[in-house]
């Protein structure tokens, strides 16, 4: 049962009142769990390879990037084997880009629900991101196997991984929430997002190390939250190099700002979703 009988006043709301109402989110927590569970189950149910997709995408990119950027273009990898160098970045990147892609479409894809029942709408983009943790865990395990196979031993730095994932997830949720809300009114978002994600890949040090960028731009570039996440992931999983705490710190701040702005925007427009979707 939901909370005992109390009177709820339904009236036009002003200001921030919905997403940022913890009581409301808590009240619907079971639904949040079911939505995330559904997203996870459905993602693998009808695909022949199921969970393998979580691995194939970053591995595929790793092979292609190693051939093109590592061999042909000869990009620096800070002295690391290029495949490892790129895979350690591709694992968090794939999590982030998938979260953006699916998250920004989540409200429209669930329009039948949004127009028929009430629930805190933020569950839709958030559910996608939670479901993404499963993919991330699988690909992380594969990454670690390859790391060990290559003879690397991660240091205690690996304990930073949850923090890095949290930064990436916060940024993804902020952006996906805002985009999913815009998508309800302007379906242009659908076309913009895949394109923007590709561009974003190249402004993030996935195929090159951020050490190639001159200061102060290297430090400044960390306002792109994925800079800190990706560089942090390399350091944490490969156990080499210096801790890029400067990048991680700036990226964490940037992610928090993005999360706050994204949720605030989502909150402003949420009340009208059912009228538009």
């Amino acid at each position, binding site marked *: *049962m*939901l909370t005992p*009988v*109390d*009177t*709820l*006043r*339904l*009236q*036009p*709301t002003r200001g921030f009142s919905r997403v940022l109402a913890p009581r409301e989110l808590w009240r619907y927590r*079971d*639904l949040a*769990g*079911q*939505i995330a*569970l*559904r997203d996870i*189950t*459905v993602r693998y*149910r*009808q695909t022949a390879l199921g969970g393998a997709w979580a691995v194939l995408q970053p591995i595929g990119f790793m092979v292609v990037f190693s051939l093109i950027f590592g061999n042909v273009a000869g990009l620096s990898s800070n002295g690391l084997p290029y495949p490892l160098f790129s895979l350690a970045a591709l694992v968090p990147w794939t999590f982030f880009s998938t979260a953006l892609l699916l998250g920004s479409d989540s409200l429209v894809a669930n329009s*039948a*629900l949004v*127009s*028929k*029942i*009430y*629930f805190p709408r933020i569950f839709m983009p958030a559910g996608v991101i939670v479901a993404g943790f499963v993919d991330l865990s699988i690909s992380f395990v594969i990454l670690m196997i390859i790391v060990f196979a290559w003879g690397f031993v991660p240091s205690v730095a690996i304990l930073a991984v949850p923090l890095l994932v949290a930064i990436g997830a916060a940024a993804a949720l902020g952006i996906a929430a805002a985009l999913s809300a*815009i998508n309800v*009114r*302007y*379906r*242009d*978002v659908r076309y913009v997002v895949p394109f923007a994600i590709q561009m974003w890949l190249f402004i993030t040090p996935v195929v090159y190390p951020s050490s190639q960028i001159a200061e102060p731009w290297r430090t400044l570039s960390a306002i792109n939250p994925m800079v800190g996440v990706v560089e942090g992931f390399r350091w944490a999983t490969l156990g080499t190099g210096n801790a890029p705490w400067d990048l991680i710190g700036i990226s964490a701040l940037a992610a928090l700002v993005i999360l706050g702005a994204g949720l605030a925007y989502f909150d402003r427009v949420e*009340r*009208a979703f*059912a*009228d*538009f*979707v």
Partner: protein
Amino acid sequence: MSVAIQTHELGKSYTLGVKGPGYGTLREALVEAAQRPFKRERREKKAKGDLLWALKDLSLTIESGEVVGLIGHNGAGKSTLLKILSRITEPSAGYADVTGRVGSLLEVGTGFHPELTGRENIYLNGSILGMRKAEIRTRFDEIVEFAEMERFLDTPVKRYSSGMSVRLAFAVAAHLEPEILLVDEVLAVGDASFQRKSLGKMNEVAKEGRTVVFVSHNLAIIQALCSRGILLERGEVKTDAPIVEAIDSYLRTLERAASDDLLERTDRDSRAYDETLVRRLEIHDDSGGHPNVVVAGRPATIAVEVTEHLPTMECQLTIVNSLGQPVCTLDSEMSAPVDVREDEPGTRLECHIDSLPLLPGRYRIDVIVKAKRHIQDGLQAAALFDVEPGTVGNRPIAAEAEGDVVLPHSWRLPA
């Protein structure tokens, strides 16, 4: 008795865009945003002019335990009111105080995911309807039993027949225990025995002292279930009375609507493309006489006049009895060799019936006109007509005949 729902000057407005709701392009929004500082005044004026009030100044009190039927034409605001009460959309003015847990019976299978199994969907759907996980677990067996589908629990719902999906959806919803139940036109589906079972369940819910707000076009069901009727017209309460009175009042508005110029009707099918509109609809006895008065068993013709000619128009007519229950549908898309498609363009569609097999009484005709694979126009109660007693197959109709139809038939009897 305590109050379950109280609304105070509740209103909901929609801005009518040129392109209708939903699709604006980002470019338009950006252009408008850029121009906004320069034309604030004009914009505001325009915005006000384009407001459509789907609900206006609605002040209602519903006591807990009441079973209330909401009736009215399409677009009268019934669904908007339910949407506000179920928090799907926010009101634009006034407020509604809702006391107690609200549950909605939704359209079939809303929130069902085709890839998930019946079992998984029970949990998903249950929590969508507001049940706790533990609650679903304790009622799981009951739900499965009610839906009669133990064998298919682990089959993905996409392999279910539509009847099975409906049963499952209703079974989940029926085991929800809200203090306030909102029902929007869901019982129109499913096979007859399941419908009866669902109605029984609804009755049970009502008797348990829970509050039910019920929307349906099926007046017979409304009359059977509800004690109080609220007739909405253009977003306002027209009648709020015991159910029989409210239904009478509604039937009178239907009559008036059917006698008005059909082009003036605003309660048209919301899916329609409106490239051509139904101007007039009439049924007449082929041997002459008043339009919309026909004799049982005689040949009759239903004529539909539309405003514009469109290539390959199709027409679907549904004859509905006075309690809102459909009697039959005549659909030109289900074509037969006897159908004639003229060579000339035109605006008149005719449906001929050799021998009208209806019992005496009052009926209405709902019409949908299609062309270019879209619904072009749709109207409920485009015409009302009376069937006078007559003979069917030379056999008089018994005065105490039950039902709506009379079939031509013959007997073989012992001496």
